[in-house]
């Protein structure tokens, strides 16, 4: 493997149409779970021009006003006065009710071993979890920085620091590695959209963004842009409005952004729009949990955990650990540890992470918040799979 290279990762703001769809899908999951932890639901969303399309299959005792949920997400993101806005957009829902197929999986505190073993996966999927020593949250540095930039880009809009910004925006960070260690920032690209094409002028925008976004993001970062770092702000010229009226969006199209920014492998399955009984979603959380704890325990500097599931089985078919030569003990030994200390069964994951209760426990939704700025390495949310509570256990061995 090459030791000197540049890796770039991209992130998008919550106003990006793809992310908008992810958030609507997950807001629907939240809405169901808030009032019915036994709800099963899959929600896909697409958005184009002023039409939002929601396709959902669900089995639940409660009723959900899908359009209203979607409109609230759109409003919260800030599409209020635009061509595409929460009030005037049309919402097409395609709804199908299912017969519940996970009969009798009890509430989390009543779940027995037997229940967990009975709850089998309904997807065949190989999932990856990753962690490395490049950032405080053990995320790869490029995606960590890219998320930080988009988050700040949204913040300056919502806090009226740069009120002329529109909700849609993307960032990209290129990190130059030497001997697999981040050395410098090679390049930064920020694409922001603005409400008025003529205002502000590109020079002013660039200055504002550098000052309020880039500088503030890199204030506490050990690796910061140097004089040779190339910084692009709207290299394609001013982007008016952005959002669905310019380009369309779809649930599950930002998998790399949701995970590790392309730095590690990620499963092809999307994360958003799926309830916690979908192993292709929660398995990824479990894999990250294991990987992060291994790195936190100091067993490796970087670690990828690979889990494969098959339909009809409660637990994984295989669990593998790859430390890319950074392991303090052999990968096989770590694998054994992981298998011993982590529960990768679907029911086990749901139970240990309390995944069905989280929406009703957190204010303003859980999965919806998760749907923007990455499902991993979050500092703004208490994510159970980000806990390093098993590190001590692993270390002691």
């Amino acid at each position, binding site marked *: 493997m090459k030791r000197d290279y540049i890796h770039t990762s991209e992130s998008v703001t919550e106003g990006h149409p793809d992310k908008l769809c992810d958030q609507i899908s997950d807001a629907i999951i939240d809405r169901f779970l*808030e*009032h019915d932890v036994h709800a099963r639901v899959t929600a896909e969303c697409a958005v184009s*021009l*002023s*039409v939002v399309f929601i*396709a959902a*299959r669900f089995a639940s005792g*409660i*009723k*959900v*006003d*899908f*359009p*209203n949920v979607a409109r609230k997400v759109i409003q919260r993101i800030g599409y209020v006065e635009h061509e595409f806005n929460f*009030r*005037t*957009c*049309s*919402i*097409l*829902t*395609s*709804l*199908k*009710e299912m017969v519940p197929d996970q009969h009798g999986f009890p509430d989390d505190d009543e779940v027995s071993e037997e229940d967990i073993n009975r709850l089998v996966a309904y997807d065949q999927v190989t999932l990856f979890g990753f962690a490395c020593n490049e950032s405080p949250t053990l995320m790869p540095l490029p995606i960590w920085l890219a998320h930080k930039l988009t988050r700040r880009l949204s913040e300056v809009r919502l806090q009226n620091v740069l009120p002329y910004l529109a909700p849609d925006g993307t960032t990209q960070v290129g990190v130059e590695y030497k001997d697999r260690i981040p050395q410098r920032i090679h390049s930064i690209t920020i694409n922001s959209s603005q409400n008025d094409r003529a205002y502000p002028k590109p020079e002013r925008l660039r200055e504002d963004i550098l000052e309020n976004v880039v500088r503030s993001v890199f204030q506490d970062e050990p690796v910061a842009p140097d004089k040779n770092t190339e910084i692009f702000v709207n290299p394609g010229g001013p982007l008016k409005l952005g959002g669905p009226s310019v380009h369309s969006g779809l649930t599950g199209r930002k998998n790399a952004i949701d995970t590790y920014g392309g730095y590690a492998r990620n499963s092809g399955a999307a994360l958003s729009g799926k309830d916690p009984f979908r192993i292709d979603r929660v398995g990824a959380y479990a894999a990250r949990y294991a990987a992060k704890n291994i790195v936190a325990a100091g067993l490796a500097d970087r670690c990828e955990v690979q889990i494969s599931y098959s339909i009809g089985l409660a637990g994984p078919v295989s669990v593998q650990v790859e430390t890319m030569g950074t392991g303090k003990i052999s990968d096989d030994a770590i694998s054994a540890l992981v298998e011993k200390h982590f529960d990768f069964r679907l029911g086990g994951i749901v139970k240990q992470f309390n995944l069905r209760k989280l929406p009703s426990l957190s*204010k*303003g939704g859980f999965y919806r918040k998760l749907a923007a700025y990455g499902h991993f390495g979050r500092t703004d949310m208490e994510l159970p799979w980000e806990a390093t509570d098993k590190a001590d256990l692993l270390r002691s061995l």
Partner: protein
Amino acid sequence: MYIFVPERLTELVKVIHDAVRGRVRYKVQGLYHSLPLRYRIEMLLPQDPEVREVSASALTGNVLVIFDPECNPRKIGSQIEQIAVSYLQESRNGDGSEQSLAAMPEIRAARPRKGEQRLAVIETGDSTPWYLMESKFVLVSLNSSKKRGLSAEAAQANLKKYGPNIIPESASRAKWDIFIDQFKSLPVALLGAAAGLSVMTGGLSDALVILAVVGINAVIGFVTENDAEKTIKSLKTLIRPYAHVRREGTLREIPADQVLVGDILVLKPGAYVTADARLIESNRLTVDESVLTGESMPVTKISTPLKEAKIPLGDRVNMVYSGTLVTGGQGLAIVVASGRSSEMGKIQSLLAEAEAPETPIERQLTTIGNQLVWISSAICGVVFFIGLLRGNGVIQMLKTAISLAVAAVPEGLPAVATTTLALGIKNMRRHKVLIRNLHAICTLGSVQTICFDKTGTVTYNKMSVLMFYSGMRRIDVRNEGFFSGETLFNPFDSDELLKLMHVCVLCNETQIDTKQRQYVLSGSATENALVQVAITAGVDVQALREQNPLLHTDYRSDNRQFMRTVHVTGNPGRLVALKGSPVDVLARCTFQIKNGQKTLLTDEEKDLIEAENDSMAGDALRVLGVAYATASGDESLDVDEGLTWLGLVGMADPIREGVKESVAMLHRAGLETVMITGDQGPTAYAVGRELGLNNGNPLEILDSTHLSVTDPAVMKALSKQVHVFSRVSPSHKLQIVQSLQSTGRVVAMTGDGINDGPALKAADVGIAMGQGGTDVAREVADVVLEEDDLETLIIAISDGRTIYNNIRKTLHYLLATNFSEIQVMFVAGALGLGYPLNTMQLLWINLVSDIFPGLALALEPAEPDVIDQPPRDPMEPIVKTEDFKRITFEAATMTAASLTAYGYGLMKYGMGPAAGTMAFHSLTTSQILHALSCRSEKRTIFDSEKSAPNKYLTAAVVGSLGMQLATLLVPGLRTLLGTTRVALTDALVIGATSVLPLLVTEATKTGVVGPK
């Protein structure tokens, strides 16, 4: 208009009479026939304080001015001259007479001075630009007053001057005309020519027979068409409109024809405008003017004068016109033109004869008929020349050719359609389906998508309150009692619930009256239900309304999904009451009342309320959110934030019995069903699922309050999918129908409300509910379901399809039989076998086989699977290419059989009448029997499951066969037809060759059911 511009201005105004001091009559050049100049003079001249009265006449070109005797008449004259000059100059620059009025801002300043009754008399309600004038001036001009309307004397005077509000009915087509029309056709002309030829060649009896045939055809045509005409005429019986007018200081309801110029019309939603009128007051008045302008969106009206003179009718937004419909709001208007002078009257007098428009199917039939005439003429020409070449006489060949042409032309084709359609109307009327448009019958059969307006069509439009969610708890209403859980609950114990009901009663337009100590509620179903539940709770609703008088109302609109009213209260002065879409109302609330205490409304509580709303809506309830605010009198009352939340009200509008089954039936018939509702998503989902609108597919709901901003292409794409349109405001129904149509579908729309009018009209078939529906809906609809029963709609669709199929069957029969005649003559002639049929025989075949079996086929009962077929393609021609092929084949079968019989005769008797007789009997009988085959395209006479009997056809076939038999037996007929006696063996041959074609055609049908 021609404008006279004099060379010298000094000649413009001449004094023609000035004997009385202060009263001068002027002659004004250019005034003659110039109404605009007349009004200009009448309006501008009185601005001079010395002028008291002005009366100008465009008929005489004179102006009579009464003025201060101290004033110099010449000064007045020069003023008139100035007005005239400026007018004539302007009109020279412009291109029309009205143009000049555009430059008259001063008009609005020209008001009659106080205390003065103006004499300015305007004789007719013609093109006076009332829309440019101040309403006060209009009132005075027509001797009316806004408050009191016309006085008794003024009414008398106006009646005398302008006449009653009657538009002379267009004369209906006289019976005599219908009869005469029977002779105005190409076949009759041909027959006439044939008769003439017969006379010339000495065949007087032939000529008489031909004339008799013409006569018989005409009588039959007359009888059926006259009957059809009557039925069609009856479609036009409109609802006799009444008008509310102010006259002699009272509000009266009078028949439309008694409305006079000068009357003050009181306009309310659903009311017809009975005469052209100028608005003097308008409160969100919207009017559907599509009758006049073709513009289907209602127009919002104002009462202020317009500035632009040269504007089309549709833009004169301070005028309302006769025949249009008030769709919303209210207003007062003064009648300025009535009867024949109204715009509608002018249009009607343009149409000398109001005939029912030709339906598409009639058009198609006429086209086919004409094509046939040319084809058969060509063939007859060929027959004629072949005959000549073979050495036959010119006269004989001419007669043969002409009679062949007569026989080949299916003369009754368009009449068959009219008659069948008219019979269809009668038949549907028996099923309580009123058809108001002839073309709707066949369109009904081809409907592909049907839109239901939920309220009133799918539901009964009878609301009742079932549930409250107040103070964060659920309160059920059942059996006139209030329950919290299972315990009975006194609403007066709950401050928040009581307040909620108070706001519901106040923010409410229902009229509350008492009759014999019983409350009588008149308003919308929703609002009535809200008042009713308050009454049930024991609230003194009338006292409540009296204590809190209404100051101001903001109606629910596309941009604000709630209604708001402002009331006077004791303390602190004003009460703002809101009710509407729960989500929208809740978003504006910061407080709530809980256990009698006003507390902050937390986000968690908002979430709970929303969940409760979803749950209520998910139970198919219509849910409203209720809130209020208080303010002191001088604060701005436009509060849209910081309101106090009171709770949710859940109301049910039960789904009509049988709708679910009807929807399933419509799906079976290959129709797509679409529901349009103003309800929020979960309610729409619950109802849509209950009805099974999705037909087993995922239920697609389009939720939009702003359909108008959606790109038409997107709308088109979306509307292909959607089963339910939710949160639709009434004005968008039209858009939905149109976008469905843009996908190429034939769309029917059902509705009952005033606001359904435009959509009903735009739909290919508008269907109104007869009992629950409003007059407006019934008036614009093509079809009215008298019993409000969707099941009858399915019968109507089935009837529509059957009628179309029957017309096709008749057409099929007529074409096949006529083709066979041509083929027999042509083939025999071409082969040099002589001409099997003579003129008389051809005419006989025409008479016996065409008319009765053809008409009887049009009365076929529905085929049993007619409703299981998908709707036909509206673009498909009535006779397709493959039909023509099939028809030709069937004709060839009959031809072959009768030529076989002819050949047998030739061999036995040689060329001559005896052989011809064989062919004649064989062809006629096989044609008559062919009617049996034409009963169905797929079913055959061999099928074990027989088609439903058609007694008319049985009678026609038996009767025609009887007549044919008579030609064998009655000697006189034999002589006339030139046939010979038929031997027994010959009869057997004839019998065999008559039946064989039937067997062949039946055996070769594609047949989908039963054994072949």
